[in-house]
């Protein structure tokens, strides 16, 4: 918009002795700058506000699942536990289960309870000494190795540690169907 459109604007010089034209340019400049400054100073915090939970790393909580001494070597046990899950403002208690096995060498391994093929819940067949998935017939041995069926990878191992005789596990979910474990 040019000044010629505003014939009613007082021309020449005014009270301050400053010519009208530069003053007008100053007004227009300010009218553009002020909203821009306000916009930027709002957009930055608002972007952080919207984005912050989206990029927040999940808190890792070790959950106690039972006593190490209760495990019998080479006899997998399904251990249930409650886990506190924090979703933003909401703290919920979720029931989860893992398969824990005391291996022949004495080390304890924990497997995610979901079949890596398509996420069904598998079970331990004590007579056959195998983990068997009822959905598509995947079969694993006691160390989690695939023995038969469509499973693309061994059972997913979860981080586990023993503190004061307590078994602590770091529960995770994995993508199914891939030939390597990818955490969700």
């Amino acid at each position: 918009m040019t000044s010629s459109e505003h014939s009613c604007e007082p021309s020449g010089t005014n009270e301050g002795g400053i010519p009208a034209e530069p003053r007008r340019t100053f007004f227009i400049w300010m009218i553009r700058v002020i909203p821009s400054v306000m916009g930027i100073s709002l957009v930055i915090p608002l972007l952080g506000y919207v984005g912050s939970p989206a990029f927040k790393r999940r808190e890792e909580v070790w959950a106690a699942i039972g006593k190490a001494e209760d495990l019998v070597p080479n006899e997998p046990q399904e251990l249930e536990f409650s886990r506190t899950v924090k979703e933003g403002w909401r703290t919920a208690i979720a029931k989860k289960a893992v398969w824990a096995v005391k291996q022949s060498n004495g080390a304890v391994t924990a497997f995610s309870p979901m079949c890596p093929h398509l996420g069904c819940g598998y079970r331990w067949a004590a007579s056959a000494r195998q983990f068997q998935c009822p959905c598509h017939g995947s079969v694993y041995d006691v160390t989690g190795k695939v023995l038969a069926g469509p499973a693309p990878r061994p059972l997913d191992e979860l981080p586990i540690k023993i503190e004061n005789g307590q078994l602590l596990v770091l529960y995770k979910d994995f993508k199914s169907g891939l030939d390597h474990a990818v955490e969700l």
Partner: protein
Amino acid sequence: MLSTVYSWFDRRLRIQSLTRTLLDEPIPGGASWVYVFGSATLFLFCLQALTGMFLALYYVPSPDAAYDTVQYIQHEVQFGWFVRGLHHWGASAVMVAVGLHLLQVYLYGAYKSPREPMWIVGVALLLLMMGFSFTGYLLPWDQNAYWATQVGTNMVASVPLVGDLLVRLLRGGASLGALTLSRFFALHVLFLPALIIGGIVLHLLILRRVGPAGPWSEARAQQRREPFYPRQVFMDAVVIFAVFLLLCVLAVTIEFPLADRADPSDHSFTPIPEWYFLFFYQFLKYMGGPLEPLATWVLPSLFVLGLLLWPFLDRNPERRPASRPMALGAGALFLVAVFVLLGISLRNLHAMPKGEPFVARGQTLFAQHHCAACHRIHGEGGKIGPDLSYVADRRPDRQWHVQHLQNPQSVSPGSVMPPFQLEEKDLAALISYLLSLKSGVPATPGT
């Protein structure tokens, strides 16, 4: 590139002539710093709408979740404190801006013919704004929100015949609870915004039809005419920027704290309304007994009615303040009354023995753990355990109380008091409260 796009649209939508119509609005007597309040109010409304939309990203209107979500916004979301701070201080600022806008229009006699419709819509906008403030106050679901709304809704009950019905409608039932919260939320973020946006559009539409009033002196109005753009726009922008900066400074420096989570069983809590309702709060204190309905609904209704019809009540066609002694006298009297009441109320609040928040928290815990079932404080409570009215005189040692609460028998053998497993912070608060109970200190209200 940009200008090609612009001219493509301009050829179809005639944007240039539209902006010219919007910006070339002639102002009688020229631009002035006195005319900025309307724009400032509009800006603040937009800022409230914006920050409100962002708050709604995390807020959940349920008694189980509301308080937690506000805590989450305040303490965990990036810049959550800033967005909430802007919304809180913006709510106060919008009231100030509306007040100044109304005063300017009143002083300049700008409500007189032909601008009566604009005034009426303006008063409706003021009422809607108060509706926003009333409904928004409940949403954090803390003690203040709960008990202030309890009082606010109870006042409606004093209206004869339909009062009870109105309160039930307002609360969504007989008592204040989950249904109240969800309807206040819906009113605050859906119904009222729809109404007020319609009202604002109407207000501005009328402005464009009747034009701005300009100075009260006809001679000065005739002296010159100046378009809205750029000088008035510039003045508006500068004031808006100053207001925005002020809000940012307030939001950054003064955290608006949450009180404790709403506890419908804790009748010891004394709610304090927002400062812009304080004058009315003080007024109510003077109107006890049979006068009460007068204060709770008769006078407010008459006042609103009078305000709406003011252009027809004030039939003096003169706009010059010097020729309107009655109107200005009435206005001044009202202002003096409001500010005197506000002053008294603020002074009383200031003089109130302000318990440390820690002590207040301890007092709440004392009630929550039903300590009064066995212990008596200033005549209230059971007689099974020792009277605690002046317990700090006998037991001034904090460590003794820590041990005593966790394992009473360890320091007081044979005591029948059960142990209390409290979190460290709560334990400290409860003991602070016990240590505040000593002779020479006036009893805290509520004990």
